[in-house]
């Protein structure tokens, strides 16, 4: 363990990691269930990408800050967000993190250091250097983590953001969740290589591509990467190879996806992989797993009940919070 890492908070146990992933899965499944029940706001779920979220966020410290994209529920939950307030926001209720004004797509939670969920693809890349500049200039040891997709990496703002962070020496840990899809377009149609990580070379930036469906591997890589950013105050690009198991958004549609591809990736499901490991190692029993799953589902049912019972914002809220 490097000296920088030794001062980090104690690493979460494998069971913690599993429980965190199960909570995210249960949250997203609750949303899918809402869609099955009737009209519900569109949501981009992160089913299949739980390891990237939990692995990276578990490597962070309380004073770190996060920016993320439309597929942010995992990042928020891993950071400790209250699923009730998340669902309330999705459902446009006044008890949501943003009073219902943002909806699913733009949740920020300052109290958790989650500065931004950007639904403008690339918006998170756009703001990240500025957030890191504040970290640099106002003191403190925190770093900034910016989650973005393989699609966002095709936006010009990716190039501008990484280049600026590099020449200005900003402490940003860029995390590309390469989930193979960019809404309705496969990654293969939009870039020549298979990986975004190596693009960091143009910016004189270190990078690492990790198996994004192995939460332990992600945690280890993210811990090293975060330590490097913390020490060097320079940016780093971490790519997590993963897969969007469902359609781009709910209600979900995968008619344009090769079933063989889905199947291959389902076999690499991050939750199944970690549970198998824990079962094999005798750290978990099948009953224990089922109990964890149930516990996560119950938490999400309670969250859903809270959200459903919450009031809509008063129409007078329409024009508040526009100006400071």
């Amino acid at each position: 363990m490097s000296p920088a890492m030794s001062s980090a908070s104690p690493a979460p146990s494998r069971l913690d990691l599993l429980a965190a992933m199960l909570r995210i899965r249960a949250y997203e499944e609750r949303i899918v269930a809402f869609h099955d029940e009737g009209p519900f706001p569109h949501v981009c779920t992160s089913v299949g990408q739980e390891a990237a979220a939990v692995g990276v966020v578990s490597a962070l410290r309380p004073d770190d800050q996060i920016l993320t994209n439309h597929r942010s529920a995992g990042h928020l939950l891993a950071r400790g967000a209250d699923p009730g307030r998340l669902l309330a926001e999705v459902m446009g209720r006044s008890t949501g993190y943003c009073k219902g004004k943002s909806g699913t797509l733009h949740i920020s939670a300052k109290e958790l250091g989650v500065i931004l969920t950007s639904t403008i693809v690339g918006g998170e890349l756009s703001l990240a250097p500025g957030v890191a500049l504040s970290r640099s200039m106002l003191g403190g040891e925190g770093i900034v983590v910016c989650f973005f997709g393989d699609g966002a990496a095709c936006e010009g703002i990716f190039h501008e953001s990484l280049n600026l962070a590099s020449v200005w020496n900003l402490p940003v840990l860029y995390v590309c969740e390469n989930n193979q899809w960019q809404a309705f377009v496969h990654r293969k149609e939009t870039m020549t290589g298979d990986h975004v990580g190596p693009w960091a070379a143009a910016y004189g930036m270190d990078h690492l591509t990790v198996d994004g469906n192995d939460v332990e591997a992600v945690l280890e890589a993210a811990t090293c990467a975060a330590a490097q950013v913390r020490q060097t105050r320079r940016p780093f690009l971490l790519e997590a190879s993963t897969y969007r198991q469902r359609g781009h958004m709910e209600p979900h549609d995968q008619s344009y996806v090769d079933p063989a591809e889905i199947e291959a990736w389902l076999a690499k499901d991050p939750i199944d992989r970690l549970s198998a490991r824990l079962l094999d190692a005798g750290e978990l029993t099948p009953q224990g797993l089922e109990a964890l799953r149930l516990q996560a589902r119950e938490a999400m049912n309670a969250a859903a009940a809270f959200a459903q019972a919450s009031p809509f914002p008063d129409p007078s809220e329409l024009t508040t919070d526009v100006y400071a």
Partner: protein
Amino acid sequence: MSLMNAHEALGQALAEEMQRDSRVLMFGEGVATKRKDLLEAFGPQRVRNTPLAEGIIAGTAAGAAATGLRPVADLLFAPFLCFAMDGIVNSAGKLRYMSGGQFEFPMVILAMTGGGWTVGAQHNHNIEAWFVHSPGLKVVMPSTPADFKGLMKAAIRDDNPVLFFMDMALGFEPGEVPEGEWIVPLGQAAIRREGTDLTLISYAKTVHTCLAAADALAGQGLSAEVIDLRTLKPLDEATLLASVRKTGRAIVVHEAGALCGVGAEVAALLSEKAFDALKAPLVRITGPDAPAPSSYALEQAFMPQPAAIAQAGLDLVQRDALVGR
């Protein structure tokens, strides 16, 4: 005539124009996935997915248009145009002029916007006025499936850049659409309802709001004329002026914010060119000067409502009696 919704009408227009003119092509994020019928009919050269990069999508449209193609670029949602402004405004809108007329820019930029889907402010921002304000561009925003078809065909045939905005709330509303060669010329408003006491001027979904308000006003004995602008640039001044010179009163309605919006332009036009005919103040009823909220409750309040329009109409007419003008 057949019954179809706006998405289908657009699809029909695109298919017909691609059939008619081999220079017409279409691209954007997911276009080839979502318009599989076009892809099958016209092949992968002419129906293309792009990387997620609005700047180069717009620039590529401009470059292709300048050199012989007639691209239709789908930019999905209006706020994403913020990444495409250079290609649209600085290139497509200006380069004909800057080159002294050497190039033409026959291209269409398609984008959705408007309340009704609770998608919030990064998917819903009614910025059509920006493009009305910018030189060299044309802007359309239809309210019926027939106009979606006819205006898209006209836009594709126009030799200038046309911004084509779809009000999301209208996408799945069915309407009668003429078969085949059905063109709605750019720059022509439609009188959706004739009336004598006041003119309601609007475009996109709020045309329907105005029609509902006109019904309500009729119940109060007032006859409202309803004008659907259809094309926001160039504006159909003649139709507007004729109507307001007849009725003497006007309310402009749109979901976009009021400040420097199309309603401001229409009011300014009328206040200059129909001044002597005006019997009452020109009123705007618009979305608030605030980002679009996601919450259903707030989004409903964001969109102009028939009751408010009808009330404003009543006030305008009753005011005459009060002011004695």
